[in-house]
């Protein structure tokens, strides 16, 4: 059976309607356990003290911020090529969530950077590319809001989204291209001294999965809203009021 049947709005609403409550419950459980463990049962870092607890917010937020943009780019490309409205609407629904997670990553990074790097902000390649990605999120949402005709808004914002994908990729890989203030990934680092300690690893994974499930639940909630708004608009155009 083709996966494209999920691009049918009625089918999308039917399937997603069945998973919403389990997703909210699962995200609540995972975040409750993960953040509770992180705050109450992890030790302080021998160099960073209690600021290490910011990692449980900053890393999941940064990952989701970047991956949401990539998801929007894929959905936009599918929308442009196959003309599936649900793809455009999923991208539109994801944008505010991605922007908020980017803001969380930037703010928690700044709050972590002040005591550890002795600066709130640095024009470092990774930080700068994340900031530019944030502006692309804002621009994408502004473009959708500025154009009354949904078809035109979907096409133009999809093109804008695809242009900005460069900065999402740069946000992810900048630390590998340049040696900068921001360290490489703590989870995948090969050298033992740079890798995250096992005491923090499990709660961090729990928080990452919990935030991802929260993201999926929020995305589906917003995508379902966009589909209803589109249907309501179509009815109004038919003269129903």
């Amino acid at each position, binding site marked *: 059976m083709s996966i494209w049947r999920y691009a049918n709005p009625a089918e999308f609403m039917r399937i997603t309607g069945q998973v919403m409550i389990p997703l909210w419950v699962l995200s609540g459980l995972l975040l409750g356990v993960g953040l509770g463990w992180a705050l*109450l049962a992890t030790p302080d870092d021998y160099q960073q*003290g209690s600021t290490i607890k910011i990692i449980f917010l*900053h890393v999941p937020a940064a990952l989701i911020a970047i991956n949401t943009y990539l998801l929007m780019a894929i959905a936009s490309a599918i929308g442009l090529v196959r003309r599936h409205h649900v793809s455009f609407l999923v991208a539109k629904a994801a944008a505010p969530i991605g922007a908020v*997670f980017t803001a969380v990553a930037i703010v928690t990074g700044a*709050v972590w950077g002040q005591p550890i790097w002795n600066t709130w902000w640095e024009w470092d390649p990774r930080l700068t590319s994340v900031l530019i990605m944030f502006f692309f999120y804002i621009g994408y949402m502004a473009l959708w809001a500025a154009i009354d005709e949904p078809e035109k808004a979907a096409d133009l914002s999809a093109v804008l989204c695809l242009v900005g994908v460069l900065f999402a990729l740069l946000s992810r890989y900048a630390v590998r291209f340049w040696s900068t203030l921001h360290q490489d990934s703590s989870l995948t680092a090969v050298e033992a001294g740079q890798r995250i300690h096992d005491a923090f690893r499990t709660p961090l994974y729990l928080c990452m999965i919990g935030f991802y499930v929260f993201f999926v639940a*929020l995305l589906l909630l917003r995508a379902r*809203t966009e589909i209803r708004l589109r249907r309501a608009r179509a009815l109004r155009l038919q003269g*129903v*009021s």
Partner: protein
Amino acid sequence: MSSIETLLADKYTGYVVAAYVTTAVLLGGTLIVSVISAARSRRDLARLEAERKK
């Protein structure tokens, strides 16, 4: 000393609290706005569908 007491006694506690409160406000706010929009769109569409069937 428990972990929470250690956290509260630490000189960096303010930074940690600021990070968690900001995250809770931003994500919680997004969730509330999304839930309100979803409820409003559901109500509006149900009304329009009922009107169409008349």
